[in-house]
């Protein structure tokens, strides 16, 4: 049964992101995966870049990386001296992509990989994206920052306090998180490039769980200054807090729709935490029926069609995905805090001391972070 559901999802998951709303719906099946081969790149950095490229194209999910004889496309190029010349040709030798990238080997390879994804599938790649998460390796909860595959990880905070709930702005240029540096949970924003940090929300009570909007201009978060934990929307400097919810219960973990017009959040106003949807300008929250008794930490996919969230059952946590157009929610993995990548097919979630990358249509998992203590609350840039 689970297998049948998974297979159904493979078909849906592949079909959904590939086409804009106006275009006719074409069912893409698993067999329609694009086959390609990576010819070892030349140049002094060729080997290093080839390795990164192969991994990126494999994790991308859209491709069958095969030997040259069976491939529809061939990836080739030359890398060295801070420059990567990449090329993709089709079976007839026609050039479908040719571009030069500068920068470090790894960064250039990621850019080339995302261009290949976009050229051959029309979808956004995840290879150039960044993640942030909470790790405890230093003895306290601190914020870490890394490439999507866990490489280049570094600790952003060193407060020896409690630093949690990161959210990345578009392009990972900035990061919002909840810090207890001053003894109260407040929202801080870090400019990733410079490391400059500002405490932007420090209202009385608890300020937490900020989610930066897709356009990078606003934050949605939980604040309790008016006497109850509710969802508010503020500017990135914390001003103009506008209250969206009014209940007797606990509202938390807002996530933005791709157009920034709506939010999904969790509320226990009906007894146990459930998901609700609300307009970013106000109005009432409407219940999203998932069929699960405990639903928290929603993440809205950037194609707008799905929500991933944590469910609690039998003392453990699972990651569930629901089609917002009316599909039932399905458990896809064991773990918690799922967050969508901009491909709308990958999730990153936490499981004990690991962060796991899950390709939802195929069910394939890859451990991307380990060895940093207990890791939790991943965020993923668009």
């Amino acid at each position, binding site marked *: 049964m689970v297998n049948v559901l998974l297979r159904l999802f493979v078909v849906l998951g592949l079909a959904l992101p590939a086409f804009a709303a106006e275009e006719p719906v074409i069912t893409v099946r698993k067999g329609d995966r694009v086959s390609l081969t990576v010819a070892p790149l030349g140049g002094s950095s060729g080997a290093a870049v080839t390795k990164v490229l192969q991994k990126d194209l494999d994790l991308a999910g859209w491709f069958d990386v095969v030997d040259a004889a069976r491939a529809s496309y061939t990836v080739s190029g030359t890398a060295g001296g801070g420059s990567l010349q990449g090329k993709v040709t089709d079976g007839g030798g026609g050039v479908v992509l040719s571009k030069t990238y500068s920068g470090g080997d790894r960064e250039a390879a990621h850019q080339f990989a995302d261009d290949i994804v976009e050229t051959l599938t029309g979808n956004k790649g995840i290879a150039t994206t960044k993640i942030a998460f909470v790790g405890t390796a230093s003895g306290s909860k601190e914020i870490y920052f890394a490439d999507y595959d866990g490489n280049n990880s570094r600790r952003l905070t060193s407060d020896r306090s409690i630093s949690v709930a990161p959210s990345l702005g578009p392009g990972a240029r900035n990061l919002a998180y909840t810090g207890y540096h001053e003894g109260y949970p407040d929202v801080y924003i870090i400019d990733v490039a410079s490391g400059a940090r500002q405490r932007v929300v420090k209202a009385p009570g608890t300020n937490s769980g900020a989610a930066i909007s897709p356009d990078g201009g606003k934050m949605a978060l939980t604040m309790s200054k008016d006497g109850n934990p509710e969802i508010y929307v503020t500017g990135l400097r914390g001003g103009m807090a506008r209250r969206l919810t009014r209940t007797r219960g606990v509202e938390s973990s807002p996530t933005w729709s791709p157009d920034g017009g709506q939010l999904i959040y969790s509320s226990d106003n009906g007894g146990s935490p459930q998901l609700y949807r609300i307009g970013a300008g106000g109005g009432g929250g409407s219940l999203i029926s998932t069929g699960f008794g405990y639903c928290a930490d929603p993440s809205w996919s950037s194609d707008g069609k799905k929500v991933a969230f944590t469910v609690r059952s039998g003392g453990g946590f699972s990651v569930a995905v629901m089609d917002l157009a009316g599909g039932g929610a399905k458990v896809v993995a064991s773990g918690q*805090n799922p967050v969508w990548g901009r491909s709308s097919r990958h999730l990153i979630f936490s499981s004990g001391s690991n962060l796991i990358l899950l390709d939802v249509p195929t069910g394939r998992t890859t451990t991307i972070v380990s060895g940093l203590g207990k890791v939790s609350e991943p965020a993923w840039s668009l």
Partner: protein
Amino acid sequence: MKKSIVFAAGLCVVLLAASCKTKPKDEYAGIDGDYVSGVPLPDRADGSSYLGGNVSKGQFQPVQFGFDSFEVSGAEMGKVQAVADFMRSGKGDVIIAGFTDDRGTEEYNRGLGERRALAVREALIGKGISAGRVQTVSFGEEMPVDSGGGEAAWAANRRAEFGVIR
């Protein structure tokens, strides 16, 4: 002259009525009957926080809670009364810190801990303590008093503690 004043006044009334009519709908319109009675928190006291050195902890017993609940039970009300009696004597203002067990997700637990602290605050206000004297903070599932698993540990961790600002 008098007539024109009356006219002006009349015009004002008409304009006011019109402005009432055209006033945009309340931004929370459509959710009448929802909870609106939370008592806003006072500004934070300068330089004092629950983790700071100028707050004495452990002076009062923590209020305990049921699983995933923020209701202050009748059995716990005596603890709130003890704090109310202390505060009524005019001594220190308090910070209530809310905590949870670890059987929820981190961010939801931060909200739940805050809700517990606010529920205890409401109980204090109900006993006549001025709202301006009571702050709240949530630590969610951080800083458990019992880091073992099991029902007894979970129950001990579901609590609201009182810190007295010196």
